[in-house]
């Protein structure tokens, strides 16, 4: 598979994963809903195409795209979303915490901006061990107003750590626009700390990949952190909860205009029709398998609800008294 075909396949996989996941939310098979990544696929695909298996990423509440692009098995990922014991996290994490440490995926994260410092610490550990691994922290435009992330920019720049900060600017922190929330500019946040920052078209996977490659090479060569702002439009809701709640914060015209530039078409048009159709068909088969696996997989045994609470296996008391030790 060529690089261009790989980029397209990753995006197609994310798109169909999200569409099938939304169906499963509406069917009641995924409880709690999801934050769909549709419209932003080129960012995860482009950045992760510049990475190796042993590189680290931290992700966000809107994390499915990053987790899939970094190489997690979509079948076990969907099983995680449906809360099955065959899931990536054995059903303990779900949509907002999906992780696959074997692939360097330190997890989606439910707190905006929380992954930046974690990725930076992992980058420091890589340097200490003499490795040229890099770490990438994905976050949205809302995160650039989180103090901990700004503190992290300072640490990463001060200690010249191989970390790439990727700000996915989809224009909204839930319903709050960037214009309403960001003073100055997003890239200027990074530049203030001496971190090289670029703004790229986040609907164009090839453009994202090119920027990510430059940043990753800088990191591997000891050149310190980089920052990419990738602009894109979130096609769907902030969260599937909106499908029922009918919250109004974007006009129909705006949404239609945003959706008119589909990252799958932007990059898909670079492939010949036959190749594209072949990839689409392969992804379709894979997702059918994923849905079947997710729905056929066993549900976890409630007796193990607090398994893994401690790495050491410590068990605290249950909620009804000392003597009865089963968690039911």
């Amino acid at each position, binding site marked *: 598979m060529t690089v261009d075909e790989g980029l397209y396949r990753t995006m197609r996989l994310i798109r169909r994963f999200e569409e099938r996941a939304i169906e499963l939310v509406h069917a009641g098979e995924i409880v709690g809903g999801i934050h769909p990544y549709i419209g932003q696929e080129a960012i995860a695909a482009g950045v992760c195409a510049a990475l190796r298996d042993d590189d680290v990423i931290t992700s966000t509440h809107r994390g499915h795209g990053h987790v899939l692009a970094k190489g997690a098995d979509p079948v076990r990922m969907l099983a995680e979303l449906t809360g099955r014991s065959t899931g990536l996290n054995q059903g303990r994490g779900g949509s907002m915490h999906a992780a696959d440490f074997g692939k360097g995926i330190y997890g989606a994260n439910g707190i905006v901006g929380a992954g930046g*410092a*974690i990725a930076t*610490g*992992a980058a420091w550990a890589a340097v200490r*061990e003499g490795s040229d691994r890099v770490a990438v922290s994905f976050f949205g435009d809302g995160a650039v107003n989180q103090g901990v992330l700004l503190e992290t920019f300072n640490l990463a720049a*001060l200690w010249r750590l191989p970390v790439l900060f990727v700000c996915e600017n989809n224009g909204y922190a839930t319903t709050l626009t960037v214009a309403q929330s960001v003073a100055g500019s997003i890239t200027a946040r990074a530049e203030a700390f001496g971190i090289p920052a670029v703004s790229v078209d986040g609907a164009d996977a090839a453009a994202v990949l090119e920027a990510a490659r430059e940043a990753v090479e800088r990191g591997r060569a000891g050149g310190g952190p980089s920052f990419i702002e990738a602009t894109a439009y979130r096609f769907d809701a902030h969260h599937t909860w909106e499908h029922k709640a009918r919250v109004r914060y974007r006009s129909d015209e705006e949404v239609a205009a945003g959706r008119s530039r589909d990252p799958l078409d932007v990059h898909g048009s670079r492939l010949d029709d036959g190749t594209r159709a072949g990839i689409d068909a392969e992804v379709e088969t894979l997702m059918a398998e994923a849905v079947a696996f997710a729905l056929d997989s066993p549900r976890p045994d409630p007796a193990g609800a607090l398994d893994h609470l401690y*790495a050491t296996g410590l068990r605290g008391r249950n909620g009804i008294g000392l003597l009865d030790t089963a968690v039911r």
Partner: protein
Amino acid sequence: MARLSYLKALQRALADEMARDADVCVLGEDIGVGVNNVTTGLLAKHGPGRVIDTPLSEQAFTSFATGAALAGLRPVIEFQIPSLLFLVFEQIANQAHKFSLMTGGQAKVPVTYFVPGSGSRSGWAGQHSDHPYGLFAHVGVKTVVPATPEDAYGLFLTAIRDDDPVVLFAPAGSLGVRGDVDMDALGPVPLGVGRVHREGTDVTVVAVGHLVQAALAVAEQLADQISVEVFDPRTLYPFDWAGLAASVNKTGRLVVVDDSNRMCGIAGEILATAAEEMRLTVPPKRVTRPDGAVLPFASELDLAVQPQQDQLLTAVQEVYKASR
């Protein structure tokens, strides 16, 4: 036997563990020069790759340590004052603590957070004098409050070696405690195992941290009237319930002395568990800071808010009399 101070024991534990395990590194503010006298000499010995003087960015460097731990290191973070733990509660309680479960056991976060000088230091007033160990016990983060030099050494060692996040509070009131210690016998002390400092048959006094010394003094004062057993939990989470039950089921009477706020404090948890599951013959008592206390500056006011030895003595006498 040799005289060892509590502070020196902390210093020695960290130095020994850094010498033993190259994955142990220490981060914190002003630790290069060692303003708290725990990290003294470590920078010169191990260099800036393992001893990292951080900018004043507690939230970032706390999760930075989480990332380093996820990648295989074993960071130790020094916090100069206990209130900084409020600032990083998200990073510890909601991030580091939750990785193991949320990832289905894929990840571990072996980070030790320690505060050399928790609780009141005379004159440090409202924002430097808290004792928030109950918060960490409540959310299930392993929480350690050593009371003696040998326990400070042994529990610090164990905390660093533990594969989960551990918060270690070294009360300001304990730092100067000295003891005769067999240096060759110093070693790890397991989490979740309490210690009976003085055996007794009439009243069990559970004392946390520096108040162990106060409890021992009270036991001595009352020795000819009341036989007091002094139980030091050493770790608040996990708590040694079996050890406490063994004591309370013997004495039937319980007083807890705890230098933190009364509402939802660790003393309340100890009383509740004893009431539910142990053979109390009279209602128990606790001596704590008042509800919602903020330590005022002036010495008289500061002391008025902390549990005092005479209050403990009165409580022990009352609990003892209640059964006669």
